[in-house]
């Protein structure tokens, strides 16, 4: 049994490594070929001496104008501010097929921007510029949810996104 076990062990070790490598290859495929990407480093908003974070955010593009901005025939910037306990704006409307770039940050504490049924999933951190792309190909009402704990009324921090 010992000899057999040693053989099995070797086979098992190689199989384990192979499975893990194959899984990781699938992730790389999804990222490179299917272009499913996570947010990266898009810069930081640092208040000047004596300035509040809120003031610094309000003077920094694109956060000086929260809301939906068309940037091309079919592309939009959606600029979202998170604050306790609401999204600004709380209701967003987009046409079907819109190629959207979300820009998000927070003016007070950590929040989250999450839209179930999509891959829009990003943290809104004070002073960090969050950026994520998504194409809305299905019409309907989507729910925007803050999915990072932000205090007493965290569960009421939601919004809607309508695609027509």
């Amino acid at each position, binding site marked *: 049994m*010992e000899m057999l*076990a*040693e053989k099995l*062990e070797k086979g*098992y*070790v190689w199989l*384990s*490594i192979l499975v*893990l*490598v194959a*899984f*990781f290859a*699938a*992730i790389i495929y999804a990222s490179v070929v*299917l272009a*499913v990407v*996570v*947010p*990266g*480093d*898009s*810069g*930081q908003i*640092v*208040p000047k001496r004596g300035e*509040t*974070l809120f003031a610094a955010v309000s003077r920094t593009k694109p956060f000086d104008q929260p809301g939906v901005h068309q940037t091309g025939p079919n592309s939009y910037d959606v600029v979202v501010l998170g604050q*306790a306990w609401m999204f600004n704006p709380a209701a967003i409307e987009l046409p079907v097929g819109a190629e959207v770039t979300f820009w*998000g*940050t927070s003016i*007070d*504490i*950590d929040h*989250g921007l*999450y839209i*179930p*049924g999509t*891959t829009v*999933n*990003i*943290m*809104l*951190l*004070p*002073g*960090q510029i*969050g*950026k994520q792309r998504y194409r809305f190909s299905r019409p309907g009402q989507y*729910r925007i*949810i803050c*999915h*990072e*704990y*932000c*205090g*007493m009324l*965290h*569960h*009421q921090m*939601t919004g809607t996104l309508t695609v027509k």
Partner: protein
Amino acid sequence: MPTAEATVTIVENPSGYSLPDSHRRYILWSILFGFAALAVGVFQGFAQGLNYAGINIFSNFPGMRTYYQGLTLHAVLNVFVFPFAAANGWLALTVARSLGRNLNGFLLALSFWLMVAGSLFAGYIIVVGKASVLYTFYPPLRAEWPFYFGVVLLVLSTWTISVAQLVALAGWKKEHPGERIPLLAFVSIATYVMWDIASMGAALEVLFLLLPWSLNLLPGSDPLLSRVLFWFTGHQIVYYWLLPLYVSWYTMIPRQVGGKLFSDTLARIAFILFIVLMPVGFHHQYVDPGVAGYFKWAAGILTFAIFFPSLLTAFSVMYALEMGGRARGGKGMLGWFWRIPWGDPSVSAQVLAMITFLPGGITGLMNASVDMNLLIHNTTFVPGHFHMTVGSAVALSYFGLAYWLIPYLTGRELWGKRLALLQSWLYFVGVLIFARGEISGGLLGMPRRTAISMINYAPLPGWKLAGALTAVGGSLMFVAAVLFFVVLAMTLLAGRKTRPVVDLPFTSTVLGAAPSGNQLILDKISYWVLLSLTLVALVYGPFLLTHIPPTLSAPPFMGY
């Protein structure tokens, strides 16, 4: 290939070793203190499960102001106090026994009282509602200082045990020059060494950023840097929860089921990999802005790598189970499985815990998959995953461990063996239903850490069923946990006094440690520490270099 094996007299023959009463007491107290914390914690868990079914009972708890206050308590007690205290007692014992040397008695006592003090500080300030910041305590949410101070004491308590272990090891080495470190001591010490490095992130964060800030000594906080430091510790802490049970699975369970550990070397390698593959914490920050792709991909790759030692563990453990099952007459491909001693509650609890760890590990790999994380980050998928790991592989294994360890430490027979058996199955079934609910809910977008019973919008399709399963499974887990505490309390109070149990049930190995040759390098823990720190520097170095000194611009927020 039966080569010569290193032997250690004390391991083969326990008669030369005895545990002084005062040491026995602190070890027992430490473990019981951990269980006491868990008892309070699971009560909150019960309320949280119901919350997801839309039922709010937490508002009726005296002094509970919000859902989040209870949730903070649940996690601080269940994943800080409970596993820290239990590991402190358990791995102090294993080191003392396998080296045949007692740990320093003062350090044992100190560790225990630090644990108690830390729990009192943190527990008090949570209960009065001034620290509802959850166990991740991200600034700019700010708790009052006793919370951070308490956390510091809890960590100091664990470091104290590590020091006591290393002192004992140094003494042992002097008396046994050139000998292999006994396996049981090696894996126990490796667990703590891993944790010593891992805890540095949160320790630096709390000591230099949060505690001074809570005392108004700093102008503000750096939210992103804090998250990075926290998660440096926050992932590896799961191995500090888990490895004490791997110690049991590797070195005790084989003996308990009548088998043997397959390979001494393989076991050591698994633990070494947990020390080396340290910098994986960025995988908790896949969707954080301000963290560049390099960090996320490096952590992603290392996370897949660190799955490997757990696959090794699965091999070793199954080998031992099969060996035991066949020795008891099991036949065929899987026949052995039914023949392991299922009637022993210590075995049934731990084997069932291992089974829940399979889906637990697989869902972990799913979380770790960069793209998949976009779908489920901060949904109930995540608590669904980790109640099968820490909530079951760890908690249920500790129940199983207690079923022989408490009798060993108290000299009292286990009370209510059948109840203990029932308890382990009930918890097993409960956690699977619970996880089914949470995981399906998460895939449908149900957010975690959310007072779902109080939301101001209609639940999304499928959330109701998912929430109901969460509540049903959670309630079963809760009942099963209560049964465990009944068995434990009755054992302590009414268990029949027996002859003291002579020894820990630790296993012999099929392929033992080689007394010389290449393998000696395995025992050089300091080499592995250096390798680990090098990897840490490669992954975390660039981030820290560009983010220190911190940007302390975020003002505190106490709206909880």
